[in-house]
């Protein structure tokens, strides 16, 4: 064992001594003085193949693997250009090579080949540069073009439907509601991929329609859906130009939607697909709660059915044969007659069990479950009572501060004049 080690040392020594001497006496030129007889194999895996092939061997995924989704997402290896940021003549050991990395003559002096102190930051810089290359850069959309999420299609606008002959869809805009891939088994081709798109188009003034399109490619599916939507326009009346005529309940399959009319300025507080539909129609204020299944196609269909089944105020008054009267808080609850039927029933003609409550009537006697509101978890704890007691005396301070600021331009009281030194101290 020991003899073997010695032998190994003998082999190693000459080369190591050559290196150290070379380093120590690099001013002295001793060409051809020390020749190593041990053979060095310079050909290996890395310099036999081109970079392109080497990278391919690392990054490529088998066909079966790609189908399973390998080589995508996190942990994916990306090709880097290792030559970037490197200069000929500059390396790990910081040498000065006259004529390569420095001029031969500087001033009057002839430069000599010499070793400079090591640059410790060089490697770090290189790694940083390489890392910046591999970072994944998304195609950026402007916030206006962006849809519901990232740069995915749902929620994005794709323009008006294509004109039919000479009839153009002026003022129309189409929004994508859904874009998904479907897999179909075919006898001859096996499993094939199809795209299905659902879009809604409308002019914001009561005309709107939705359509579904299927195709092998996503853009084609979108186009087909858009044009179908343009063919299936429906007209909806908008109450006072901003909301629906009354609350309603609507369902399609297992999807149930409770929709409520709202005051001006309330906005659209509902499912994002319903919001897009409302914007296409021109409805500005509404609240909708989706219950049961949230299958998007069902939501869209249910909402459209509900809108179509609405009755105008005049129709409601005629159905009931009673005056329909509106009360608004901002008008001090002044009874404003909105619709009157041709003939009005008297109190005696109304059966006892008839629903007269407006909301109950338009909801077809369906009652929305209103969940009980529980106190916040901290409100039952003793520390909350302590907090309330402690901060009771500060409860008006904010208002007082505001009043003082409007009156004097600063927080000031009779005490500030009596103790001016306090103010000077706080300023300093």
């Amino acid at each position, binding site marked *: 064992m020991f003899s073997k080690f010695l032998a190994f040392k003998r082999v190693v020594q000459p080369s190591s001594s050559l290196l150290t001497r070379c380093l120590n006496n690099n001013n002295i030129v001793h060409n051809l003085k020390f020749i190593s007889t041990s053979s060095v194999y310079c050909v290996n895996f890395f310099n036999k193949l081109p970079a392109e092939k080497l990278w391919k061997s690392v990054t490529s995924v088998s066909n079966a693997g790609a189908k399973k989704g390998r080589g995508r997402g996190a942990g994916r290896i990306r090709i880097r250009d290792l030559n970037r940021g490197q200069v000929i003549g500059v390396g790990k050991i910081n040498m000065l090579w006259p004529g390569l990395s420095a001029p031969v003559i500087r001033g009057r002096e002839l430069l000599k080949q010499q070793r400079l102190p090591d640059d410790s930051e060089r490697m770090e810089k290189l790694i940083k540069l390489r890392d910046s290359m591999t970072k994944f850069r998304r195609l950026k959309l402007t916030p206006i073009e962006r849809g519901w999420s990232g740069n995915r299609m749902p929620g994005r606008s794709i323009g008006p439907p294509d004109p039919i002959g000479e009839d153009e869809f002026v003022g129309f805009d189409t929004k994508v509601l859904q874009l998904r891939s479907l897999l179909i088994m075919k006898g001859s081709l096996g499993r094939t991929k199809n795209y299905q798109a659902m879009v809604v188009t409308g002019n914001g003034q009561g005309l709107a329609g939705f359509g579904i399109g299927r195709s092998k490619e996503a853009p084609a599916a979108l186009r087909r859906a858009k044009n179908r939507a343009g063919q299936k326009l429906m007209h909806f009346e908008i109450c006072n130009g901003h909301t629906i005529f009354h609350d309603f309940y609507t369902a399609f399959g297992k999807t149930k939607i409770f929709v409520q009319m709202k*005051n001006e300025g309330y906005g659209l507080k509902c499912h994002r697909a319903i919001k897009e539909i409302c914007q296409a129609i021109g409805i500005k204020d509404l609240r909708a709660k989706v219950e049961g299944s949230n299958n998007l196609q069902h939501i869209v269909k249910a909402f459209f059915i509900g809108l179509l089944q609405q009755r105008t105020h005049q129709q409601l008054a005629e159905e009931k044969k009673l*005056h329909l*009267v509106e009360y608004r*808080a901002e008008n*001090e609850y*002044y009874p404003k007659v909105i619709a009157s039927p041709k003939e009005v029933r008297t109190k005696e003609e109304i059966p006892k069990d008839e629903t*007269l409550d*407006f*909301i109950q*009537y338009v909801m077809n006697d369906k009652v929305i479950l209103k969940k009980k509101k529980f106190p916040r978890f901290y409100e039952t704890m003793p520390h909350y009572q302590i907090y309330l007691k402690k901060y009771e005396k500060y409860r008006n301070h904010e208002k007082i501060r505001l009043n003082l600021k409007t009156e004097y331009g600063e927080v000031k009281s009779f005490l500030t004049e009596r103790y001016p030194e306090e103010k000077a101290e706080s300023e300093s």
Partner: protein
Amino acid sequence: MMSVLINKLPRNNIKTIITRSSEIQSCRHLSIVPSLYDDKDPAPTFFSSQVQILLKRLTRPDLSKVFRKRCNTGLFVLRTPTYKFLTDKELEAEIAKANEKAEQLLQMPPVVKMHQTINEVLSEDPALIGYDSCKYLFTDITYGVKNEHRIIVERDPDGVLRNCDHDIRKRLNQTYFPMNGRKIKEPIMFSDKDRFNDLLDNSKYEFILDRACIQYEPDEPKYQSVTSITYQHIDLKKCYEILRSTRHFGPMTFYLTWHQSMDNLMLELLQGNAIREAVLLTSLRQHIHGDVINGGEAHNLAQQILPTPKQSEKPENLTEEDIQLDNKCVECIEKFIVGNSAMKSQHELALQGFREHYQQLIDLSRGLRKAHGGV
């Protein structure tokens, strides 16, 4: 240092210019001299039922304006409207209720005489002279006592115990029993002349009058001067329409009539073809001053006019009785113009215009009746 000085100079100049221009402005507005109710007490006349009825009718209440959207109701966001199915009877009841509410909303701020300063010494105690260097104020804060009847007294350093004057009473009442919206310190819009004039120039009359109602008592000199300037400004600009259907139209008409300056209002009524209201205004003047030549006739006509509906509501369907009544009104106004008007030529011109317009209306309605087969 130099640069700072140079910077300051032009700024100062601008300031002086601004103040000067504002002085000029305020000078222009100061030409309106407030006239107060300080010699004779207007309250008995104002509160008499006949005058109240006349003033309410002259207000020409339009329910859609009475129940307009207001921004001082404390609603920061709009609420979803509620709907009801009503039968005829229920609807009538609801409308009656709304009319009651309208009556409430149109209740006129009182017009009363300006108060006198209180200077009533309760006792003098020389033993207390020099007891303290400050005044002592005592307030009776018993629950249920009205603000004007509350006992508030002050003990001066010289030992005199006296009843407080109005401004101290108001301040203490507001301290112990704060009235919603009233400020202890006078709002800038009333204390700063420029801001007040800006409001007047922007025709924010209703805002001024509403705020004055909250901030002041009706017998305060400041209230009377603020309202007086506002009424005169309206009269000058002839913006009576802004105050119609509000609670301030009555007091304004009363003010103008009381101070013998209702000619502009009369002209506006004649030009707006409201001849019946013009007669009511004459009747009002007769009630207040009793100086109208045909006062008795005006009173009689007013009694006939009051039960009829508002004139502007049905302009193109005149019955024979309407025509008769209107002709009487025209005669009455003619006499008034001759006897009492200060703007005779303008009034006569307006009346002539009305006559021509009315003749057309008469022809139209008679022709219509004939065409429909009437006699």
